[in-house]
């Protein structure tokens, strides 16, 4: 996806949300998007024309802070434990 197409889609989402709310600014934003639309390539416009756009109510519903609690180092390789050769006794008590 090109940066120009990404910007167009972001603006379109905002426009659809405002349109859904009945906000008249949606029309102004739609008009303001025209220069970006015409700057897209023919292929990009063709892809956009072929979409089915659902009703978008919000950009994001749940927002979660990202940081070291979400993104961390790769986990170490799993320990290799061989299956026991003897029958396991008392496992129901442990469960």
């Amino acid at each position, binding site marked *: 996806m090109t940066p120009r197409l990404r910007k167009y889609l972001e603006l379109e989402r905002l426009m659809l949300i405002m349109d859904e709310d009945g906000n008249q600014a949606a029309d102004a934003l739609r008009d303001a998007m025209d220069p970006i639309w015409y700057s897209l390539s023919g292929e990009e416009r063709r892809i956009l024309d072929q979409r089915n756009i659902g009703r*978008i109510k919000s950009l994001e519903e*749940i927002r*979660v802070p*990202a940081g*070291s609690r979400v*993104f961390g180092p*790769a*986990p170490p390789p799993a320990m290799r434990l061989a299956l026991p050769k003897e029958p396991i006794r008392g496992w129901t008590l442990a469960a």
Partner: protein
Amino acid sequence: MSTVVLGGNRFVDCESILAYRGTAILKVGFAPLRLDLATPEDLPSHRVVRVDQQGWSPQDRVRVVRTPQSFAVFWEDDALAVATLLDPETAHLKLDLRPLGINIYDDPDGLHIGQNTFAGNRVSGSAAAISLGD
């Protein structure tokens, strides 16, 4: 109407399930069922995965297994995401991105993201159902 069931949550008609800084990182598509996964490129683990309609990478560590009713993405032997079609408009998603150093997974308690757990939510008509941000 498309619905994704994940960790006891229902995501209805959402463009993406997860997004990071405004960019979708996990999408579920229907007809046919498919997953798009694009992890951030600046991960501390340096395990960057991309699965989309053009293919997947890195080719030597990521595997995609698909049938008409399911679509699964593996990091080596670990399942990252497994989508199963429950009916033509509903998919069940099992997610565990921990092998990539991303602390997001689901279990019977719900969907875990970092220290947060989400369960029993219904999100509809959202561009990004869950957005990870600063």
